[in-house]
């Protein structure tokens, strides 16, 4: 047996945008075990719910993460709305769906750029982020913010998009779809990219299930489950199916996320065609009492929002289980037997968000 050594990886590493530390147990260049360590940026946002009015907490929930901020705000609002049995107007449901899918597109483009940067393809990274910039511009145009949007509230939305704006967005997405079709040829067909992604970091369907993986990471291993099918927002009225791959390697995770971008553009088109006119919020009176587990499909996978309310303006508990938290055990499994040089790619292909994870 080769001599074992331990190599510390992170929390500061060129490929990691956020802090996670791994102790990599190596035999020569082969990883035999990886022990994770997080907790560098724990902020205790869940505890704040005991001191903030439940309406004001929407702004705190949005700040759990700068990439999925819209969905965090929406997930929290939907939990409280379920407890209070508030039915939001149909137009608000469609607005939530459109902004959710815009979040998914920008998150997946961000991830593709980071992946290109990780394997040293700088021009591909810049092209991907150039495209992502257009989505952020649309967010700014429709909400006034590029990172924190503050358009969710309990009972609906604070802002509306007029139909001219939606038509304008569809034009931008049509251009983006055309450009993206060219761009993804490099991700999926370039031999240098393929050599870094194919046959690396396998996670079988059974392992993905046993280890509780979620989102594109899970669907790339052949499990067809997408929380949007639960029926929140306007998803029950739109036609889409979970995108999967049976391969389970890093290439499959890239392929699934790329196809999800095209799917999101299609969902936005469907929503734009069906969005009804009308109000975007309803007045909400009283305080919530009860509890609810809300599930939302974020770009990285299923997120859980547990809210427990006591009939006052302060909640007893707000707990978020983020997709990265659920995907860490699966990520550790993919590392067993991999080469040390592949570790950065394996970490990236779960699309980790440590800010979400530590809350």
């Amino acid at each position, binding site marked *: 047996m080769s001599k074992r050594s331990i190599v510390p990886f992170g929390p500061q590493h060129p490929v990691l945008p956020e802090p996670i530390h791994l102790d990599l147990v190596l035999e020569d260049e082969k990883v035999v075990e990886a*022990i994770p*360590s*997080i*907790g*560098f940026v*724990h902020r*205790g946002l*869940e*505890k704040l719910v005991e001191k903030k009015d439940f309406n004001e907490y929407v702004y705190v929930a949005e700040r759990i993460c700068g990439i999925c901020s819209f969905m965090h705000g929406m997930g929290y609002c939907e939990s409280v709305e379920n407890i209070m049995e508030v039915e939001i107007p149909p137009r608000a449901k469609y607005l939530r769906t459109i902004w959710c899918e815009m979040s998914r597109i920008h998150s997946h483009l961000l991830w593709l750029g980071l992946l290109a940067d990780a394997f040293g393809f700088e021009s591909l990274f810049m092209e991907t982020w150039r495209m992502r910039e257009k989505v952020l511009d649309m967010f700014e145009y429709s909400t006034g913010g590029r990172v924190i949007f503050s358009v969710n509230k309990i009972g609906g939305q604070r802002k509306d998009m007029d139909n001219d704006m939606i038509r304008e967005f569809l034009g931008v997405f049509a251009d983006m779809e055309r450009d993206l079709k060219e761009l993804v040829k490099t991700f999926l067909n370039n031999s240098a990219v393929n050599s870094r992604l194919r046959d690396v970091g396998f996670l079988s369907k059974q392992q993905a*299930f*046993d*280890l*509780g993986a979620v989102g594109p990471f899970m669907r790339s291993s052949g499990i067809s*489950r997408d*929380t949007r*099918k*639960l*029926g929140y927002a306007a998803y029950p009225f739109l036609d889409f199916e979970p995108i999967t791959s049976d391969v389970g390697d890093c290439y499959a995770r890239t392929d699934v996320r790329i196809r999800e971008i095209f799917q999101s553009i299609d969902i936005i088109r469907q929503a734009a065609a069906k969005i009804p006119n009308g109000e975007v919020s309803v007045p909400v009176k009283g305080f919530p009492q009860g*509890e*609810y*587990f809300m*599930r939302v499909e974020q770009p990285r996978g*299923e997120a*859980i929002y*547990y809210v*427990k309310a006591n009939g006052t303006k302060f909640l*007893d*508990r707000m*707990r978020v*289980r983020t997709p990265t*938290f*659920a995907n*860490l*055990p*699966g990520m550790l499994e993919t590392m067993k037997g991999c080469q040390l040089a592949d570790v950065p790619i394996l970490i990236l292909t779960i699309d980790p968000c440590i800010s979400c994870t*530590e809350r």
Partner: protein
Amino acid sequence: MPENIIIPISSEVLLEEVLKMKGSSCRLVQICATRIPDGYELSYSFGKDFDLYTLRFNIGEEVEIPSISGIYPASFLYENEIHDLFGVPIKMISLDYKGTLYRTEKKTPFK
């Protein structure tokens, strides 16, 4: 409409109930603790397709509970989180960080 059910149990039968979930091909979705006046309320959520089943029980202060990491290996992160933030003692976690998963300034800040 998918089910979203909370199942009250006692802490003594936790492993038995979790084994039943495993036997029913449920996946572990999340584990969390909530502070209550005399201790903690613990929720273990499992999913099957889109249905969600949550095992729920209360424990007093400093009452030790068994880890379910022998049944669901991915539970080790949730259990370390509950230990670090709330101070709930959990025995036999497969990977026990012994209070160092979260580097918080104050020990067990959610206690």
